[in-house]
């Protein structure tokens, strides 16, 4: 057997780990430019992570093992997710071990434990954060799955690399079903990655924060792991959207192809970042109960995509 796929696998994981902070930095830079602020530079996130890793850990008295275990599992799932999304090459060994549904489930694991960690301490905010997180998730996940199902119905498979190949080799990408699915995907990924208008990653105002509220008690390396995993998650969603709906330049085997794919990936991510920033600056954060409509419309999009797949195609 040729070791190439495993090499590609490792490479991809490392790359994701590496570029995730950069992507976040890129997004922040763009935002600053749009809002006319001076930027902290593309590499600020790396510095933050370094600092956090260096710091000691401060735990609340009644923090149980769950509280300490969670950062690792969150990080682990994020890494695995990074391994199974075909970004550089379509034949990744890990990609076969987990399909789109598993991908969603992986993020669900992370969320599950994060919410538990939020409740572990026993402050009002932690509980509030978990409650809201789970609420949003339980609305977002069906939409997410519906979007993925639409694509996988079109591709006749749920395995990501298979989907990518089919869509890649597919003659026209202007299939209405995919278009609807893409729209749904965008909305959902805003919710999943906790961006405006669903959640504000930078706020620490108690009553508005959702994801942050759960991490309130974290510090040191634990917090660092959370932050890093969060960055990876954002990057991964962007990358997933990119490869699922715009799979041009994805590698199909050779090293060169993968190198090419890497370049394409960077370009796509850059573009995705721009879109993201435009959305975030364009919109304001919603009230919690407006989210029903937001995610409902995402779900509607996905459903329409599926219907149009059966009706139009």
């Amino acid at each position, binding site marked *: 057997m040729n070791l190439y796929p495993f090499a590609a696998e490792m490479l991809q994981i490392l790359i994701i780990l590496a570029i995730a902070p950069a992507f976040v930095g890129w997004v922040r830079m763009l935002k600053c430019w749009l809002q006319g602020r001076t930027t902290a530079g593309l590499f600020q996130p790396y510095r933050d992570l370094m600092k956090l890793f260096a710091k000691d850990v401060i735990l609340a008295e009644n923090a149980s093992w769950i509280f300490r275990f969670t950062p690792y599992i969150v990080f682990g799932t994020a*890494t695995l997710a990074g391994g199974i999304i075909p970004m550089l090459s379509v034949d990744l060994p890990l990609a076969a071990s987990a399909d789109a549904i598993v991908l969603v489930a992986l993020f*669900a694991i992370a*969320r599950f434990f994060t919410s538990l960690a939020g409740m572990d301490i026993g*402050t009002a905010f932690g509980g509030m954060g978990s409650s809201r997180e789970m609420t949003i998730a339980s609305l977002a996940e069906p939409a997410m799955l519906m979007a993925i199902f639409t694509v996988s119905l079109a591709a006749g*498979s749920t395995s990501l690399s298979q989907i990518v190949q089919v869509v890649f080799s597919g003659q026209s990408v202007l299939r209405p079903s995919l278009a609807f699915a893409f729209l749904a995907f965008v909305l959902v990924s805003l919710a999943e990655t906790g961006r405006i208008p669903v959640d504000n990653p930078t706020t620490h105002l108690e009553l508005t924060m959702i994801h942050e509220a759960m991490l309130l008690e974290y510090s040191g390396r634990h917090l660092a792991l959370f932050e890093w995993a969060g960055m990876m998650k954002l990057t991964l969603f962007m990358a997933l959207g990119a490869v699922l709906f715009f799979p041009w330049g994805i590698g199909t085997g050779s090293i060169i192809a993968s190198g090419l794919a890497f370049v394409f990936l960077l370009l796509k991510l850059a573009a995705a970042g721009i879109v993201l920033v435009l959305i975030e600056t364009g919109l304001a954060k919603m009230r919690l109960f407006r989210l029903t409509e937001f995610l409902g419309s995402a779900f509607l999009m996905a459903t329409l995509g599926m219907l149009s797949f059966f009706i139009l195609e």
Partner: protein
Amino acid sequence: MNIAPIELAGAAVILLLGSAVLAMFLSRFQHLLVAVSFSLASVASLVALVAGAWTVSSNIANQAVMAIGLPDLPFHLRLDPLAGFFLTIVGGLSFFVSIYSLGYVKGIIAQRPVTRLVVFYALFLAGMFMVILADDALFFLVAWEVMAAASYFLVLFEDEHLENRRAAFLYMVVAHVGAIAILLSFGVMAGLVTGFEGFHGYTFDAMRQAEYTPAWATAAFLLSFFGFAAKAGVIPLHVWLPEAHPVAPSNVSALMSGVMLKTAIYGIVRVTFDLIHVFPWWWGALVLMLGLISAVLGVLFALMQNDLKRLLAYSSVENIGIVLIGIGLAMIFTSFQLPLLAALALTAGLYHALNHAMFKGLLFMGAGGVLHAAHERNMEKMGGLIHMLPWTSGLFLVGCVSISGLPPFNGFVSEWLTFQAFLLSPSLPSPLMKLLIPMGAALLALTAALSAACFVKAFGVTFLGQWRGQHAPQIHEVNWPMKLGMIMAAVCCLFLGILPTLVIDWMDSVPEHLVGSKISTTAGAFGWMWLTPVARERASYSGPMVFFVILAVIVIAYLILHVKKGSIKRVPLWDCGFEKVTQRMQYTSTSFAMPLRRIFGFFFSIRERVKLDPQAAHRAFPGKMHYALRIRDRFWGWIYKPLVDASFLMSRLVGKLQQGRIQTYLIYSFVTIIFLLMVTR
């Protein structure tokens, strides 16, 4: 020497009946009684488990006839892969629970004599085994009702509480009406076979051979499905379930939720796939629809509960729904002659049945542990138990993760398979089906997400944070038998999650018997690591890979971060600059579920009342607030109350017939004569 599996199973039943009889004599020595009879029960369950597993793997069906019952209609027994599979489920969980009971029931002796509990526990197990083994209508119903009656007495165990009596009564009535419906459906099937010149029409064999006219087949199906659905707690026939399961002793609730509901599933599969075996697609559609409704509403109701065991009971409704989804899909595929897909869907359903037995049993055992330790069922009063019950909480967490359908545990596998079955619906010939069935997938996804939320709440509120009561009680970890029972169940959850291919290989004889196709050829095609139900290109999942990669990453990260010894400082909570935070400020289960209650409120009849303290200076600064919330599911008002009222009205009318004056009675007989003479003349 060579013994058939069915003999083993029979031995198990006899052992249980024997222990029930024995228990009546031992009732004077309670401790001995508990020790003896529950060890007997666990042995019996183990034997049954072996028999079942053996049957399934060896893919044989052997029969037996017991010369009891009616001389013309002796009890027929049959152990085929389907029966074997369910025998494995029941045997497995009841083995764990019996071990668990050794410790659990010992704790009850102090409060009350447990003879009743012990006797009916044994009868209950025996009843379930017999239901699965039965191969003729009479024996099946006898076993069915023995099971029902025994569980009724178990629910009634603490009979001085009103709620127990209510629950038991409701349970019994629903169960019995369901049983009569099943009886009638057998009547239909047997009637078509023989026309009642003899008794042999009552055997399942005869029913298998029968040719059914569509109308009669439908009647039989609807009747039996009604009966079984009533037992399985399918919405809208579920009302008894959340009443009965919580009030029973926890080991019993574990069995009732874990495996008794499965016997109903068994019945549905047996009747549709085996006895009638030719059916139109809309039966499947009906089952699928009810399954979806039960799944979604069940989990929503579960989310709203504050009583831990009640929450678990409602989540059983949800899981039964998921099982039915698989079975419904299988029925649809079968009716369109797509055996492979049917096999996939059926496997998904049955696999979920197996999984649910394991994790629901585990969860109820855990709840029992909490009850046993903290004497509290209301989550609003609990919290922080993870520090006092490390084992119980850990094992409970395993259950929560599994039931929330998260990899690498078992709940995910069956949900994943069900999703795959959904996504294969485009190969159906009927365009309508094509269009509608994937919508079901969305509902299933919603169910999964909600159940995750539900169990975050259950675990978080019960075990995490701090004790919400006034003063934390002295709570000790549960004793070893209880731990052991839970550990075994937890291990099963993990095993079923990581190595589904082996299990599916093993249980493949079931779909082969029922729908004439098997998925293991494709499922295991790429080795034991890869679960690829239809084809590798379609979808693949590798439990071990996921598990080990995550584990590896965690370990690596941990090691890297601990090369240099970073110190850990313990400090009091950060109170965000507020007053000192007290444990009363924690999120309770009610407040946790509030957003979802707002969003899905229209499913419930909610009465929410906030009363401000009148002598507050200004209503912006109330002295104290009184908050009352009451959530009911609407079905009670929609279906059951009207029925009850109607029957009481009816009885009032009937009562008017008889108001005491003898002349009136004479007139009755006078009129009767005249009337009859008119008729006959």
